[in-house]
């Protein structure tokens, strides 16, 4: 474990983790390596295993690799018309829901982050209701509401049901981002003659952009992954990828579900890689600290 080795060596130079006797350092090094390995096994193991399945022919326990390899499952998935349609639908709903969510929530995020008005904290916390009530309980009564409003099996109905899961992300995270923009920078811009709008677009927005981007991606993924509400409101007209996934898991060989899993993960992984730095940089964490 060279990684853990140099890690321990460098850690030893830091004041917080001081160098002990050699035996201690070796033990610490071994322990670190073991922990990293365990986490690799725990986090990545299932994903690697599923990826292998996507290219597997027959594969029986307790063999650690398939008896043969094949690309047939990929051909099968791409030649099934229903599956392709569900990919299209998912790629249609997610951007629409994200855009609608941004339109509805971003002005509010600005107000929560920058303005003071009566009931600000209470309203900010009240959005949390979307997380606290079990979704199925909501959907049952929402179905009654949607029936009366003729929203069942409609595009708008699915958009509304998917919107619920995006509100907290799209309000809380950008609100914290707006709140952390230093007022002195805006004042400086105003001092050199920039108008209110120009200051907003050229100073405030660019500084808050990483937080907004994190919120946009998380909202996109929340919509993209939503299955339960879409199933109740959208089927049989709108069968998105996650809903297909449930039926694949139950009705097809494991290899088909594995192929589909990889396809379904591609947008998520690509988008998350885009904002990984900002998510790790604390924008997600900031958003949940309600200030």
């Amino acid at each position: 474990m060279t990684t853990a080795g140099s890690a321990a060596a460098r850690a030893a130079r830091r004041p917080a983790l001081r160098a002990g006797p050699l035996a201690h350092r070796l033990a610490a090094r071994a322990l670190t390596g073991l922990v990293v390995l365990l986490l690799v096994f725990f986090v990545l193991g299932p994903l690697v295993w599923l990826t292998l399945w996507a290219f597997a022919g027959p594969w029986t326990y307790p063999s650690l690799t398939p008896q043969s390899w094949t690309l047939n499952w990929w051909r099968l998935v791409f030649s099934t018309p229903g599956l392709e349609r569900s990919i299209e639908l998912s790629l249609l709903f997610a951007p629409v829901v994200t855009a609608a969510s941004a339109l509805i929530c971003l002005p509010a995020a600005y107000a929560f982050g920058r303005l003071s008005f009566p009931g600000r904290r209470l309203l900010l916390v009240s959005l949390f209701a979307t997380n606290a009530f079990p979704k199925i309980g909501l959907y049952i009564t929402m179905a009654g509401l949607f029936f009366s409003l003729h929203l069942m099996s409609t595009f708008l109905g699915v958009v509304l049901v998917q919107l619920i899961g995006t509100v907290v992300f799209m309000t809380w995270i950008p609100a914290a981002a707006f709140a952390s923009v230093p007022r002195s920078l805006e004042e400086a811009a105003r001092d050199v003659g920039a108008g209110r709008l120009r200051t907003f677009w050229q100073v405030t927005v660019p500084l808050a952009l990483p937080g907004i981007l994190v919120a946009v991606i998380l909202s996109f993924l929340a919509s993209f992954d939503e299955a339960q509400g879409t199933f109740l409101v959208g089927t049989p007209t709108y069968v998105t990828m996650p809903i297909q996934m449930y039926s694949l898991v139950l009705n097809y060989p494991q290899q088909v579900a594995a192929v589909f899993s990889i396809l379904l993960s591609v947008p998520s992984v690509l988008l998350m890689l885009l904002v990984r730095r900002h998510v790790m940089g604390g924008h997600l964490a900031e958003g949940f600290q309600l200030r």
Partner: protein
Amino acid sequence: MSPGRGGEGALGRRLVGLAMVLPPVALVFFLVGFPIVVAIGYSLGHVGGLNSAVSAIAQHQVAVGGGIGTLEAYREVLTSHQFLTDLVATLWVTALSTALVVLLAWGIGLYLRLSESRAAKALSALSVVPLFIPVVIASYALLAFWSGGGFVRSAAAHLGMARFPILGYTLPGVVIGQVWVNLPFGVLMISSGLQRVPTALIDAARDVGASLARTTLSVLVPMNLVPTVIVVTFTAIAVLGSFTVPYLIGPTAPTLLGPQATVTFQSFNEPQQAEVVAMVLFLLAVGVGSAYVRATMRGERVPELAS
């Protein structure tokens, strides 16, 4: 999207603020708050109005003509053996998953705070990977990995442990799934909180001879209490209300109350009983959530006093 017209006095500014937050608040009221009120009515036996569409197809429901309603549906559900075993399962799975997420997140967060090594960075990068993967897929991958014919048992068999337990379709398997899915949020919250603890403070404690454990307990834990409470509440609420992980990984019975409510509605066609289960989950979530609200409100006052 004008950023507030601040010049026109405090009242105008306040109204602008309220007007700007109205859309999401109205959306949540219409799609969440209002359905909750309707659901409460339905669980108490009010089958008319907006509940008529659901109650027309429902089986086995309790109805009242008027008044406050009846607790008959609650009595029936809360005394059933299945509900009680599911409730017990839900409580221990939630408690165990939350505890494991907090412990793991603290371990990774501490290591990341006290060491800038590559191993620390690798750990933190690894721990957010689940954020990249849709929950349906994660559950399916975990099931395949830990199931009877999965990697873990195959590897154990090669190592001579042919009787290694099957974790697919078991509650411990559900705990594994919940930890996997909820780990990124925990690590992000706790490590970002720990990064904010001033290094001078940690070094000061170490300089007067405090051990690493002592420094953690007396300096880092108190300084990072709010993020920890946030992780506890959000993880607990996420596990309580979860559907996909226990539905795909868990056993048919006993299962968690989330999938149980869904099955009660979709398979047994008993929406009223499903709503009663949802109410129980909601009350549990509100109980946990109030800890979060209190913690963040208290955390709020400090910067206010300082400024």
